[in-house]
């Protein structure tokens, strides 16, 4: 389980978990979970286009995820964000369907892009993943304060001169970068589960932003590591364990918060 090839898997999955948890935290905070679903899934159409042109799949993923981010941010200027996201998303996948119908042997590769090939990460793939992961994390750190302010209190941020639109675009671009790096490894579907489950669980446990972000990273790491171990033993897909564990963590966190609140009320009544 910890042999040479598996070591690549562990490293790649750890990097992916950290970046997914950090971007996912902001996605949950900003209420842009639909974009978190649309960008990785839509980017997969880009990979289809790249294979048609004989390019590296990464180029296609990068181009389409950035195009998706620009499309969502652009349409959101004059539309409701959920409508903008939905339309950008279906357009990307519509083009993807066209690319797929043009190429002859795509089904197998498409399958791996949707569900990932986490057990087939080669040594050559690890380095770009680590570098791009570091770039995404640095980008988030650089814009941390304005991003946090505009996510939690958009009106206050605007009054202080932080343009909400520019922040939205910047955030979506970081998500696009993270996506094009992670989709070939863990797949578009798993990337989404990993962004939302841990972050939503952490958010319902605590309202303090830094703590919630740290918690979300911890939960994502626990989810991915346990998932890989169990998946390695059982041969069932990693995506299943990550998806189900993310939801389980969320429900557990909700139950904890509810119990704590009830306890607090009871203590308050007893004290009074």
């Amino acid at each position: 389980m910890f042999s040479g090839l598996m070591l690549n898997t562990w490293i790649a999955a750890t990097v992916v978990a950290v970046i997914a948890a950090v971007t996912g935290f902001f996605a949950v905070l900003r209420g842009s979970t639909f974009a978190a679903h649309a960008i990785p899934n839509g980017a997969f159409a880009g990979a289809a286009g790249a294979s048609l042109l004989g390019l590296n799949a990464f180029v296609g993923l990068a181009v389409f995820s950035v195009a998706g981010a620009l499309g969502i941010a652009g349409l959101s200027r004059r539309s409701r964000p959920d409508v903008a996201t939905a339309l950008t998303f279906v357009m990307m996948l519509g083009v993807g369907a066209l690319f797929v119908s043009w190429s002859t042997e795509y089904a197998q590769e498409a399958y791996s892009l949707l569900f990932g090939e986490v057990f087939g990460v080669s040594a050559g793939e690890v380095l770009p993943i680590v570098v791009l992961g570091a770039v995404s994390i640095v980008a988030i750190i650089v814009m941390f304060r304005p991003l946090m302010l505009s996510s939690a209190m958009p009106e206050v941020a605007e009054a202080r001169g932080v343009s909400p639109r520019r922040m939205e675009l910047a955030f979506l671009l970081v998500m696009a970068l993270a996506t094009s790096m992670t989709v070939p490894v863990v797949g578009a579907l798993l990337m989404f589960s990993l962004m939302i489950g841990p972050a939503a669980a952490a958010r319902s446990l605590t309202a303090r932003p830094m703590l919630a972000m740290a918690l979300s990273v911890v939960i994502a790491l626990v989810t991915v590591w346990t998932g890989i171990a169990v998946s390695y033993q059982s041969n069932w897909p990693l995506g299943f364990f990550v998806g189900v564990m993310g939801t389980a963590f969320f429900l557990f966190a909700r139950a904890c918060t509810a119990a704590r609140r009830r306890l607090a009320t009871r203590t308050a009544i007893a004290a009074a």
Partner: protein
Amino acid sequence: MLRYIFEPGFFASGPVHVALAVGTVVAVTSAVVGVFTVIRGQSFAGHALGDIATTGGSGAFLVGVNQFWGYLAFGAGAAAFMEMIGVQRRRGRDVATGVVLGAGLGLAALFLYLGTQYSSTTGASFTILFGSMFVITSSTVPALITSALLALATVVLLARVLLLSSLSPDIAAARGVPVRAVGAAYLMALAVSVALSAVIIGSVLSTALLIGPAATALRVAKGPVRAMAAAAAIGVAATWIGIVLAYDSFYWPPARRGWPVSFFVVTLIVGCYLVTYLRPRRERQDAAREAPDTEQVCSPA
């Protein structure tokens, strides 16, 4: 002249007839249900329910139950789950949808894995996303259409209270409307209609037909009834033209195997929406169009 628009054999082809009939029912249902989806800001739920329902279909296939029930059970189950963990507040709604979709996609990965162990269906992931309008078996058509019409009837019957409780929940509650129950009933109808359209035309096209025509109509039409009619017209037109073009494209380059229906329909719908951008208008009014005021919508058109 007409010969260039309709390739020879278009009107004689059986699959085309089924595709046109079913496509029309789905387009009308999606458009009417979609008007409320857009007003209530539930696009994400509308898309997620389609994805989850398809997962239910592959689950039912695994255990040997009729897939139709798999679709319905998973769609309705997911809607109930979303409602339970907080669909009522806007931001919580988004996250609840995400969490439920995450679990659904996890199950999708498992079902596909188990499915490919028993039969080699590499194309399965594909059908989930794109569906195929030309491979509808005519035996399932009556059941699909009946359920779609049931969902449509629910939404039409609820239209007035639904509109009021979507636009101003406080006023609705003050007038004695059970806002949460109405919302839950709507979500169920949405789940059924989306589940069915995802089966028939794939989750991409089902989202496109749900959101695109409704969003376009809400930008140009005055009042909810006209918006529903306009949305239905746009949806049906896009579906028909898409089917005609897909049929025509059979000999088009580069593959000479036909271009996908979903590509044409999606392009037409998104194009239609973008055309509404050409009308010069200040931004606030645009936003108000998509989420209209109570007075604007409730006053007789």
